[in-house]
């Protein structure tokens, strides 16, 4: 009953200055909401990063070929081969017992055209030579038709599977299946046997964690690629030619179990560098290690976010203290009256403390509600941005577009608890100061 009265009185006193109370609550509100928001966004981003790394496959080891800097001064007679070779690919597969399978991959930038429809312009894309396992390992899903089969790879068939966006571009009004795609630079035709599902861009196979776009890919058997295009790739740009010689762009080593990954990675690296320990034309990426790193990064990221949120809560707390000090000065007379009418010092402390706690609880609860709205607000603002400023939206980093904020459950009680603690902590000093006023002086105060 008495506590109820105290709370009721506190509320009444606060409502005497609604604007002031509102602004004070706002400080806590922003603090609490930002704790929840920042943690939710942080969690969302790191989950997204984790997902992208997992897309690479935690049980995979990726070896990329890297073209060394051109030292020949444009003299293309001295073209030297670089990168991983088919022999090395075979060697890894045959000698390391923990390896489940090895995927050779060769990638070229190409123009793709469809001659059946004169309105369709050639599209720049990526030609990927691979084997039938590629779809499974990189988790590509087929929309229609089938992915390259073992038989098609063995028999060097001129067939291809195309990614969804490329299909949309080249075949806006036709069924791409069984149509021929033309490669003007190579003067080759490939028959389409499958179309992939739409897929979000994901971490690069290069392991740079920059998002890679699969949506303009064409997959052909790596054997066909070798037979028809050789290992030398010559490009004409302007009046000059540039040429490079490499067997494979990448090999993806799939390990039998994720636990074996670190050991296998060492063996793979040792195998590849057995002749030249300082070999510069390859890089070995281990998503498993990236995943471990990402977990550490996530922790630091969350701590950082938490710190920023904590600062905003403290600022909110200082706001409370500021207001309560002003209130105490302003209500000195009231304090004097209450003391004269029998209020003990602790009654006065309690009265002002109840007011600050009420402010911080209101701020805390509304802040939590706002915090819970985080995913909705982000979705709505993404939608709004996409609708009203599509170019700006397209310019956003991939992660900002696909990231789903994830409310961290613990952040809700923590944020609320901190807001109450802040209220008590920053309210205590003004309250004690109020209680220690001399009643006679306080009564005389105008």
């Amino acid at each position, binding site marked *: 009953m008495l506590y109820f009265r105290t709370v009721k009185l506190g509320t009444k006193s606060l*409502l005497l200055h609604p604007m002031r109370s509102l602004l004070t609550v706002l400080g806590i509100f922003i603090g609490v909401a930002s704790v929840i928001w920042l943690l939710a966004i942080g969690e969302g981003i790191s989950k997204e990063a984790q997902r992208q790394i997992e897309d690479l496959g935690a049980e995979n080891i990726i070896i990329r070929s890297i073209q060394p800097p051109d030292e020949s001064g444009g003299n293309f007679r001295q073209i030297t081969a670089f990168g991983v070779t088919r022999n090395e690919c075979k060697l890894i597969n045959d000698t390391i017992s923990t390896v489940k399978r090895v995927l050779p991959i060769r990638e070229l930038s190409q123009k793709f055209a469809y001659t059946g429809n004169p309105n369709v312009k050639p599209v720049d894309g990526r030609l990927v030579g691979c084997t039938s396992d590629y779809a499974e390992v990189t988790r590509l899903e087929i929309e229609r038709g089938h992915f390259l089969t073992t038989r098609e790879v063995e028999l060097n068939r001129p067939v291809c599977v195309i990614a969804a966006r490329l299909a949309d571009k080249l075949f806006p009004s036709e069924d791409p299946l069984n149509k021929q795609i033309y490669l003007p630079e190579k003067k080759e035709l490939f028959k389409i046997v499958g179309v992939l599902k739409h897929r979000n861009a994901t971490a690069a196979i290069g392991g740079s964690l920059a998002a890679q776009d699969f949506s303009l890919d064409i997959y052909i058997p790596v054997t066909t690629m070798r037979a028809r295009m050789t290992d030398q790739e010559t490009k004409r740009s302007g009046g000059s030619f540039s040429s490079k010689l490499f067997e494979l762009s990448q090999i993806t080593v799939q390990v039998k179990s994720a636990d074996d990954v670190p050991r296998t990675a060492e063996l793979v690296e040792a195998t590849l560098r057995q002749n030249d320990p300082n070999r510069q034309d390859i890089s070995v990426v281990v998503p498993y290690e990236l995943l471990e790193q990402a977990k550490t990064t996530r922790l630091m990221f969350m701590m950082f976010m938490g710190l920023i949120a904590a600062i905003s809560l403290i600022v909110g707390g200082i706001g409370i203290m500021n207001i309560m000090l002003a209130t105490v000065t302003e209500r000195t007379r009231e304090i004097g009256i209450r003391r*004269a*009418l*029998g209020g*003990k010092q602790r009654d006065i402390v309690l009265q002002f403390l109840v007011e600050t706690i009420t402010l911080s609880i209101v701020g805390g609860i509304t802040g939590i509600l706002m915090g819970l709205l985080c995913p909705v607000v982000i979705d709505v603002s993404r939608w709004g941005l996409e609708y009203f400023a599509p170019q700006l939206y397209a310019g956003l980093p991939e992660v900002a577009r696909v990231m789903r904020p994830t409310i961290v459950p613990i952040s809700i009680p923590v944020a609320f608890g901190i807001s109450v603690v802040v209220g008590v902590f920053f309210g205590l000093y003004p309250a004690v100061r109020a209680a220690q006023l001399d009643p006679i002086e306080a009564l005389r105060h105008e």
Partner: protein
Amino acid sequence: MSETSTRMAAVIRDLQKHYVLKSETVRALRGVSFDVPEGDYVAIMGPSGSGKSTLLNLLGCLDQPTHGSFLLGGDDVAQMTDDELSTIRASRIGFVFQSYNLIAQLSVVENIEVPLYYMGNLNAQSRKRSIELAKMVGLGERLDHRPTQLSGGQQQRVAIARSLVNDPYFILADEATGNLDSVTTEEILALFQRLNDEGKTIIMVTHEDEVAEHAKRVIRLRDGEIQFDKPVEGRKVFTVEQIQEIAHNADVATRSAD
């Protein structure tokens, strides 16, 4: 002492109060002694600097004497802690101030209840009592009004109702009519007399002779000592009819203000 025919509301013996200001000591009260029997109506007078305010603060248990004793219902207030003084103020003293001193965010009835709130005696019965007191001072229809919605006289009547709610040993009125016009002053003085007639003890501090003339007894202070302590000669007394008329007029004024 309480066994005697007239019981004492307050017994003051050799009360002294010194303030230490930097190097010098100000002796605001230099040994004041008097009794206040129950049912008395005392006016404490004196020019500024006479120790009037100091005595008021001591009588109100807002301050403690440097020397001497102040017996309030047999307990020596001079020896009490801050918390005990607070309890005494809540339960045994009824304050009426010059500037009413109602709490702005509380309604009439809630203001009346404040001393009970600090005594921890808030219940349905106390609410009933507060409402009765509000009716007694003619504000029964304004229970939910805020102080800012009331005139000065009305606010002072609320303050008087508040001073009665804890059934105090005495009502301590500090220049209770100082902010009021002559009509309202009369209204308040009539109310005091009525309460005194009903047996309430009243101690009022004033510098106005016209106000003091309504008391039964005047104590005049000068330089921290009692100059004289004597019954009021030719005391002004309201007749019962006058009291009723004043109360009626105040009632009418209250109603017409609505």
